[in-house]
């Protein structure tokens, strides 16, 4: 049985022939589309390492079957920077040391981007902590991550005012 789906991944349209309906979006990205930036930490939606944006919303890619996403627009960590120009969230993660081992980082960053786009980040660190609590960091880089999200949100606000 072959299933054909069409996805837009990081702005590029992809026709995917799936030979197996069990393939998750995460495994599709990692094992079949060579997009390994998105990480598998638990494979059951408990750690957030696989967070990507689907049609602008944060999801755990490990919990989504690829066949259910025909026509979807997927944004992964590889598609976030504009060429050499980092997304403000990426730059803020470096500046605030919002990671150590880096394994949860793609998920943290995509989650932060989603949170800001949802208008849920605000300037209250407590709110950011709640909104980011689906993304575990075992190294304990939480302090830097919250600072990075605050910083990126501030920047987004300024850009909005200018625009």
């Amino acid at each position: 049985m072959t299933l054909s789906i069409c996805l837009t991944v990081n702005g590029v349209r992809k026709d995917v022939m799936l030979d197996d309906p069990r393939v998750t979006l995460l495994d599709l990205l990692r094992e079949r589309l060579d997009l390994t930036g998105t990480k598998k930490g638990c494979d059951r939606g408990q750690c957030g390492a696989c967070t990507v944006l689907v049609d602008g919303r944060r999801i755990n890619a490990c919990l989504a079957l690829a066949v259910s996403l025909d026509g979807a627009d997927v944004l992964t960590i590889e598609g976030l920077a504009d060429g050499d120009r980092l997304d403000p969230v990426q730059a803020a993660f470096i500046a605030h040391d919002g990671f150590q081992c880096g394994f949860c980082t793609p998920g943290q960053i995509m989650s932060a981007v989603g949170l800001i786009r949802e208008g849920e980040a605000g300037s209250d660190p407590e709110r950011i902590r709640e909104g980011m609590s689906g993304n575990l960091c075992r190294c304990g880089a939480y302090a830097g991550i919250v600072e990075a999200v605050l910083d990126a949100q501030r920047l987004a606000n300024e850009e909005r005012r200018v625009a």
Partner: protein
Amino acid sequence: MLDIIPFPAAPHVRLGSSSGQPLTRRDGLLKVTGAATYAADNHPAGMLHAVVAVSTIARGRVTSLDVAAAKAHPGVVEVITPANRPPLAMDPDGKHGLFGFRFEALQNERVRYAKQPIAVVVAETLEAATEGARLLAPTYEVEPARIGFENGERYDPPTVGIGSPADFDRGDLAAGLGAATHLIETEYETPAQYHNAMEPHAIVAEWDGDRLTIDTPNQAILMARAGFAAFFGIPAENVLLRSPFLGGGFGSKAILAGPQILCILAARMLGRPVKLVLPRDQMFGPVGHRGATQQHLRLGLDAVGRLTALEHRAVAMTSSFDEFIEPAANASHNLYASPAISTRHSAVRADIGTPGPMRAPGEATGSAALECAMDEAALACGIDPLEMRLRNYAETDPATGRAFSAKALRECYAQGAERFGWAGRPLAPRQMRDDSGLLVGWGMGSALFPAPMFQAEARATLRSDGTALVETAAADMGQGAWTALAQIAADGLGLDIDKVEFRAGSSELPDGGIAGGSGHTATAGSALHSAGTDVIGKLAEIAANDPDSPLFGAGNAGVEARGGRLYHGADETRSESYSDILARAGLQTLEGNGKGGRDPANAEARAMFSHGAVFAEVKVDPDLGQVRVTRLVGAFAAGRIINPRLARSQLYGGMIWGLSFALHEEALHDRRTGRPMNADLAGYHVPVHADIPVMEALLVDEDDPYVNALGIKGVGEIGITGTVGAIANAIWHATGIRAHRFPIRIEDLTE
């Protein structure tokens, strides 16, 4: 007392301009763009996927596996069981070397703990391999699981930790206890904890004849290479082990594990590359954990709160077939002055996977109990907990009587207390409430961790264009080796860091030693620095002997290297760039080598530790018992800090592990089946963003001329010590309830 040390300190090295700078991570760009390559991101052509089937019982034998059903599943290529598993060159049940643990590589049908590997299914896709493993539907001959301290066989282990003595005595314990005005007798229990690095153990193995390439996260790359080679009967140099990034290690990725061996076996058996990634639940079996402990302490105190005796007894849980004894009681050796110190360890065997070193092994569990006991002692003596610690301040190492290489703990207490606002803390519990009626408590704990060095080597190559390549097989599991080690290397070479290319994370490079024990920066850093100074020494010799050089006749000692130039020691106007010196000598490159290791004379003469003090504020709901940590302030003295930005992150991480230990982490094994009941990240709690309060980690200046020439200690593990006790003590201060087990739960705090 004798203040003169009969051995010289290592010559004190003035570091250059890179060390001490809060540089951002050099691997930062790779990590924020998803371009950093972790083991499981590799996908060589023709690669197969392996999935391990694990036991659902904790003791007994596998009596059948439906291999036919698994093989019939589309995409399944092979099923490996004890019946067809190719031989290994060494026995997995042998003990090979200091870090050699027994492991399961399908050597027989025996099951000795739940989630032990019992078969491997290899398939064209991950989905097929996963389903194949499920179809094996094993049956067992089940024997009753022995779970818990009361059900296992108790014995006295010959050693604890990695080769430490199980027992220790100094002074007369009975006399000390007899002389005490106050006697504190108390017990603390700590649970099994699992490392759970965000990156599950993973390996991609590929054979080419008798040459093996493996991508697998590893904390001790050259040591692991030798181990893998030995199990497959090939020379170590035939193995290429790549580990540029570890997605966390915490001790669990320093030791060979059965699944890695099975993946390599599968690749050899099938003649194709194979990838094996452990699912999260299999992180609760064959890859180590922190063993549970029961600790019993007796503290004798005189009328003013000085220890007259300190006794610490620990029972540690280990597996039925191997041992790693959590050396918890040893946490009482080096922190507080006492005329008598006595520590003992015993062990209990249970049907669980073998424990292993996990971030601050022994120090974390032991410090948790000791710091709570010290608080109990302060209460009995009616003195402030910080004053209690100061009255028992050890001016020399309590275990050996040796002088400390450096000890700025007093400054840590002072700066931490000042920053936290400790002064004015009421002695009695349940005295403080916030605006919403929550109980508020303040607690503190002392932090201590050894400052070891191991062995490492490095190579530095100066190039004709004035740049340099420095190489060592260092491992970066998040601590920042890619950055901090490059900073040290740049200073050794007298170069700007941007002129230094740093290669690490591969077994092709000189042995970078172990990323563990909080000794990697000191050890690999010393090797890199001395490789740099070796090159500079050679370069200086060339220049000094070259009549055309402005440095002619300067002699080695009379030359200073900085910014890519050598300067005459007595005349700054006489200088020459590295490139010019090399060009005139007709050299494309100039190579130097270095080693890192402790000066044995200093090691013999001095006790070497990092120190710290942690202060915690908690709020507890008086009706519901819910605890929130609202503030954490740590102050740490750990020698020279190479990169304050990264060191602070390490300390935060350690303190968060302390918070996790105090309030969250606990693996629970079902007493009937022996299965871990919470083998996932929803049931096994680690802190999330919302659990983490406002934190501060103060870096207290400390000049340590004895640890090594660079004055470097380590910051990877100390943060967890002190923090557990500080939080537990704050909970007591808020509620008046002393919890005697970790993690502290709501039910411990409701009456």
